[in-house]
Structure formats: structure tokens, C-alpha cells
């Protein structure tokens, strides 16, 4: 797998707008951004309403995912190009999620919505009408997703990468600094985790850094053992999906999982070990 297999730039997207077999999908948590203007022909996926089970804390099941993609007119053969706000956090999450359910042809727009906006490229408020498809998903690929017991068993054995900000890692903040610090669960990080904030993997315009820079960041600077399996986590699993994309898709490391339960789950578990303080 190479960078060109999983990442496209804005020029590529502009050249393929409206092309049969290519579906642009904007993924956000706050979908007012899509409603204000989106890349022409892009359809919308709401990270919360469309991808999360409305009752349990879990994903929509296989049937629900099939219904979602069918309703959006996405077929199994389509190349899906994902992009979104927040430096592609939710688009990277959707990329990981689509992979989890076995979608084959999928790419991320490098820089996402931010790069597109800063380039002053065209945005449209027209909502495309796509004919419904009949999508068939695979069973979830458990090689990509870590659950809590696996994370506990990985302490001191596998690479654990905490991709939150240093203040969240150290326990000074419970949420990213664009959100109120409202939660009641314990602060800190999973013992033995390395702190490599997701933002270190991105340039200011939201594009990913070069493969050489990324390899140096995780291997030389953070001290990850690329020979070991890796689990990435953040607060709810979307920033760590960004890092999962870097490690698994761009750097082509085997056995990288995203722990989507992340700190909102781990920091609320009774009796589990927690460390406070700066990265070592």
C-alpha cells in the first residue's frame, strides 16, 4: 500500500467531481458545515447520527451500515473519497469504519475541508440526488478495532499511543481545549502509553506530513517499536483514527488497532491503572 493508494489531493478531487464510480463523502460531527457549503456532488454522513447506535455505545451494526450506504447511493464497487472538518478527524474515523465493514476502494482527501477552504475552492449548497444502491457489507474486521480488555492486556507489552494533547495526557485537561472541561471521569493516561499528539502528524493546512517525517516522528522521536503491535487511542476514537490512518495506511505498519472506547471509556473504568504527568 502506498500513499497514492489511500490519499488524494484537492486537484485530484476537482478533476473527478461528478465522475461515475467516484463518490465524495463529507463526514463531520457538526454537519452545519456541510449545509453551509460542501464540495460539489458530495453527500453527507453524520458521525453521530449515522455511524453510532442510538442506544448502546457502539457502531451501527452490519445491517445498519448497509442501509446507510444504500441510502446514500454508494455501491460496493464505488471509490469513496472521504473528507471533513477538524483536520479530517471524523473523515479518518469514517475511513477506518468503512474499512472495518470491508469497503474496498476508499481514499481520504489530504487536508480535508480545511485545505479546500483555505485554497478558496468551490463549495456548493446543492444536495445531490443519488439513486439508492444495494450495498453489502462484510462482518466487522476485528483486526482493526481494540476493545478495553485487549487494551488492558497490552499495557507494557504493545505500543500504546495516546494521541491527545499533552495537557490531556498529563491529566490537566479532560477534553480538547475547544470544548468545555465538563467530564467527571478520571484524568490521565494508560500506563506505558507514549504521547504523540495527532497534530504532530499534520501540517498547518491539515495535510499529512511526508512519510519520512512521519516515520521519524513515531520511531525516532516517540520511540515506538515498529516490530510490535500498536493500539492508538484518544478521547472517543476519532483523533486516534487519524493516527491509525498514518500508522496503518501511510506507513504500512501491520497490526495497528484503534481503541474507539478511548479515554471516555478507560478513564471511567473501575480499578484500572492510570498514570498522571508528562510523557517520559
Amino acid at each position, binding site marked *: 500500500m502506498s500513499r497514492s493508494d489511500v490519499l488524494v489531493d484537492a486537484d485530484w478531487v476537482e478533476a473527478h467531481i461528478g465522475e461515475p464510480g467516484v463518490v465524495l463523502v463529507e463526514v*463531520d460531527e457538526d454537519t452545519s458545515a456541510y449545509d453551509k457549503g460542501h464540495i460539489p456532488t458530495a453527500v453527507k454522513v453524520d458521525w453521530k447520527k449515522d455511524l453510532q447506535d442510538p442506544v448502546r455505545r457502539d457502531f451501527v451494526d452490519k445491517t445498519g451500515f448497509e442501509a446507510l450506504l444504500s441510502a446514500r447511493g454508494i455501491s460496493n464497487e464505488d471509490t469513496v473519497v472521504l473528507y471533513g472538518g477538524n483536520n479530517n478527524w471524523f473523515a479518518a474515523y469514517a475511513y477506518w469504519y468503512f474499512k472495518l465493514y470491508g469497503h474496498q476502494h476508499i481514499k481520504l482527501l489530504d487536508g480535508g475541508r480545511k485545505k479546500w477552504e483555505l485554497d478558496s475552492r468551490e463549495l456548493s449548497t446543492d444536495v445531490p440526488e443519488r439513486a439508492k444502491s444495494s450495498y453489502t457489507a462484510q462482518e466487522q474486521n476485528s483486526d482493526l478495532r481494540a476493545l478495553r480488555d485487549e487494551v488492558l492486556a497490552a499495557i507494557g507489552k504493545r505500543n500504546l499511543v495516546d494521541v491527545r494533547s499533552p495537557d490531556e495526557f498529563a491529566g*490537566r485537561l479532560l477534553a480538547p481545549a*475547544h*470544548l*468545555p472541561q465538563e467530564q467527571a471521569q478520571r484524568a490521565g493516561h494508560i500506563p506505558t502509553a507514549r504521547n504523540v499528539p495527532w497534530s504532530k502528524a499534520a501540517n498547518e493546512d491539515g495535510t499529512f506530513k511526508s512519510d519520512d517525517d512521519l516515520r521519524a516522528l513515531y520511531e525516532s522521536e516517540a520511540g515506538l517499536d515498529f516490530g510490535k503491535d500498536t493500539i492508538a487511542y*484518544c478521547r472517543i476514537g476519532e483523533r486516534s483514527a487519524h493516527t491509525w490512518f498514518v500508522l496503518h495506511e501511510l506507513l504500512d505498519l501491520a497490526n495497528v488497532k484503534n481503541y474507539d472506547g478511548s479515554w471516555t471509556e478507560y478513564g471511567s473504568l473501575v480499578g484500572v491503572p492510570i498514570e498522571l504527568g508528562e510523557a517520559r
Partner: protein
Amino acid sequence: MSADGCGAPAGGAAVPAGAGDQAVVEGRVLHDGAPVGTGYARLLGTGDEFVAEVPLAGDGGFRFFAAPGSWTLRVLAPGGLRAERVVDAGYGQVTKVEVTI
């Protein structure tokens, strides 16, 4: 913004009621006297360490909930427009800053 989400809404999340313990940095971005409705505000720590980023609201507004301390606020907008300000945040305070680019 509820605890089950993590995204940055345009302009930043609303200040919750009774949030006297928050260290808020908020303001507006202007260009030629008019609000900049498309762009990004980022909060940076020591050594330009990224802390947070929000897309600007339609009125050019932004808001952060920082830890107490000194921060760099950087604004990016289409056309290569950018500006920086140093801001101080403290618990129970709302630090207001207007940025002209």
C-alpha cells in the same frame, strides 16, 4: 457540546451554564472591518505546540477552553491571510481578543 462528541463546532462550543471554573479565550476575526466567516483559529502552547483549533463562525467568532497560562492564538484564512496574538487564560475568566488580519 456533549461529552460523547469531540468535534469543534464553528466558532467554538457555547459556554456551559455555571462554568465559572473554565479558562475561556474567545474573540472575533476581522478583515477590512468585516467579520471573517471562513477561516480557522488555532491555540498553540510553548514551542508552537498545537493545542486546539476551531473553524470561525459566520461572525468571525471563536472560543477555546484552555488550561490557565499564556497561549499563542494563530488565525488562518483563505488568501494566505494569517495573524498571531499572545493571550493569557485563567480559571473563571473570559479573555477576549479581537484579531484583524
